[in-house]
């Protein structure tokens, strides 16, 4: 997470480039194996669709006698001729489309997160040079004053103080002696009354989800010890709403938090994390010098001057952002700990900069390589099919079918598999991952965009086309006399 200490990242991994690359490749292998398993599971459905479509087209072809429908029947029947070959082509296209759908979804999500808005966009204040970003608590008040008093009125946040929010990250464990991933809790310490307006993804809530979170935030404001937790974290801790939890701070060493769980975060939003009232954190830090947990009696907590990790502000225009950025950069009052102001998207972009080589590799090496390999698989299957059916193609030509008809039959078979394989794959990716939402870092819930339902079949057909154009041309150019001479 941007500005978050590495040991507090969601997975708790060291995200060094080498390890990250290793994780990505391992993830890709798992993804491909999963895709193959899913493809095998959907294979019967694919053949059922093929059979039903064949019958339907057959009925229409018989009823209308329309030539293109009759040829389509030949295509469908051709696909059912060699179940093994059609299955392999389908599997290749399914796996390719599923993996590319997921890659597309990730790139789409990153694209969304890094695209700049023109107005009412969020900006983010962080430490100028240090990651994790850690700032003194006084900076938040000073920054608010600059925004609400020093900026020209038309450039100030529209909703005043409601448009400015700070985040502090807290990692705690229920078992101080044996901290493990499954007994850890990661919390955002924030101002509860700004949750529904300033947190990405939560400002879009409607209906009962919104109502429940509003009530929970009001309860958090009234009771600083109240927290809301994601369903998945509640489940992994075996806790329910209404129970209490004691957490030993890990990055806030020697702080003991006693929370009351008063609500759940909506599904798919901020998975695995919890929200707490920032006042409780400040109160714990303030009382730490006299706390029995303080090993150095009377001394303030080591995190007391660096407990603000991020500050968010929503600004009305780009001009407002530029003016505020200039003020923040040049103010002596922000001199002790240098800070910088970025748009949220550029902030995320800066963070993603570290991974740009990986994304470049995914976009320009992995994706083309996968398309190339799968095209070869499809081409291989089709060329075997064409070779086996050279005599049949020749017979069609003898009967008067023009070379273009033969070309269309071969192309049509491949495009049909491409359409069905790509379509089913995209449908599975969209349907499955649309229902099992999970979050990647701070990007909000991961989901496969609905566009995939269009791109999936299109990709399947494009790969099939690329793979079969060679065999289709070979079929088109079959020399009838040569074929029969060989047969004889």
């Amino acid at each position, binding site marked *: 997470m941007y500005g978050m200490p590495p040991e507090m990242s969601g997975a708790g991994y060291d995200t060094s480039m080498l390890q990250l690359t290793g994780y990505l490749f391992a993830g890709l292998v798992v993804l491909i194996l999963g895709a193959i398993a899913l493809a095998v599971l959907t294979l019967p459905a694919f053949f059922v669709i093929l059979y039903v479509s064949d019958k339907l087209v057959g009925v229409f072809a018989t009823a*209308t*006698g329309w*030539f293109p429908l*009759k*040829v389509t*029947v*030949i295509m469908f*029947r*051709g696909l*059912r*001729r060699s179940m093994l070959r059609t299955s392999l082509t389908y599997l290749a296209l399914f796996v390719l489309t599923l993996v590319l759908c997921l890659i597309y979804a990730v790139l789409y999500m990153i694209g969304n997160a890094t695209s700049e808005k023109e107005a009412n966009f969020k900006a983010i204040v962080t430490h100028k040079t240090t990651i994790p970003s850690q700032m003194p608590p006084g900076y938040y008040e000073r920054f608010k004053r600059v925004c609400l008093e020093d900026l020209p009125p038309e450039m100030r946040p529209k909703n005043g103080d409601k448009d400015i929010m700070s985040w502090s990250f807290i990692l705690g464990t229920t078992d101080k002696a044996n901290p493990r991933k499954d007994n850890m809790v990661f919390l955002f310490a924030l101002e509860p009354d700004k949750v529904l307006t300033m947190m990405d993804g939560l400002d879009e809530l409607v209906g009962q989800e919104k109502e429940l979170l509003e009530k929970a935030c009001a309860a958090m404001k009234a009771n600083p010890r109240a927290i809301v937790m994601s369903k998945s974290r509640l489940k992994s801790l075996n806790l329910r709403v209404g129970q209490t939890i004691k957490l030993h701070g890990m990055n806030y060493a020697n702080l003991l938090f006693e929370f009351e769980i008063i609500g759940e975060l909506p599904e798919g939003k901020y998975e695995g994390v919890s929200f707490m009232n920032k006042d409780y954190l400040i109160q714990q830090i303030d009382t730490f010098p006299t706390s029995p947990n303080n090993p150095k009696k009377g001394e303030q907590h080591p995190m007391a001057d660096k407990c603000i990790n991020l500050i968010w502000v929503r600004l009305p225009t780009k001009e407002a952002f530029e003016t505020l950025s200039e003020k923040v950069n040049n103010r002596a009052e922000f001199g002790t700990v240098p800070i910088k102001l970025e748009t949220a998207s550029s902030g995320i972009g800066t963070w993603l900069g570290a991974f740009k080589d990986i994304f470049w590799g995914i976009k320009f090496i992995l994706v083309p390589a996968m398309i190339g390999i799968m095209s070869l698989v499809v081409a291989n299957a089709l060329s075997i099919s064409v070779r086996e059916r050279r*005599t*049949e193609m020749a*017979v*069609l*030509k*003898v*009967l*008067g*079918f*023009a*070379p273009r008809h033969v070309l269309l039959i071969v192309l049509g078979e491949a495009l049909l598999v491409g359409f069905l394989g790509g379509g089913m794959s995209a449908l599975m990716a969209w349907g499955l991952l649309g229902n099992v939402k999970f979050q990647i870092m701070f990007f909000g819930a991961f989901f496969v965009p609905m566009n995939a339902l269009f791109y999936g079949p299109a990709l399947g057909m494009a790969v099939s086309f690329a793979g079969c154009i060679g065999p289709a041309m070979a079929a088109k150019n079959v020399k*009838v*006399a040569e074929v*029969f*001479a060989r*047969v*004889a």
Partner: protein
Amino acid sequence: MMSRAIVQVRDLHKSFTRGTEAIHVLRDLTLDVGEAEFLALMGPSGSGKTTLLNLIAGLDQPTAGTITVGENVISGMSESELARWRTRHVGFIFQFYYLLPVLTAYENVELPLLLLNLTKEQRRKQVENALGLVRLTDRMNHRPGQLSGGQQQRVGIARAMVTDPTLIVADEPTGDLDTRSADEILQLMEILRAQLGKTIIMVTHDPKAAARAQRILHLEKGQLVLDTAAAVS
């Protein structure tokens, strides 16, 4: 005396190149085939009889010479023109039937008609007539794999005549059949000639099959060596 020539072959020459070597398959061949004539082409393997059949049927282009079928000089046609011409004017019967295994007997016979501008009803009528002629109306919804060799060849004959072509060419039509089925096929071909007036050119190695034709041509090394009337006609 031969009726009006429906096939006219003049100074036909066909050669292939294999590496740097030119192989002359047919040399200066001239031939007429009359309307409603049943002609058998015989000769040893490599004598050029199938090549001649392919050229007359418009499946290949001669190196030199002309071929006229009916009013059409087919030796100068492009591949697409030949494809269109074949649909209307030539029916093919193959030794190994070459039915599309994924289509029923009805659909196989209907295939050439799909390329013609016919209504669904006209197509149905023609297919049923063709299948009726070969006595396979009751098998029209069977796929080739569900039919015997003889039945498959009868479907092949129905497919060859369904477009009412000028010319029917047959390459060893009985070569893959038992004696009884072969006899049935030859009888059917005689019916096509005698009752429907079709011109038939058949390549065969079998003297008994050739004897069912009206005329037998013997080829050797790409040239006509004997042109005889068959013993039985």
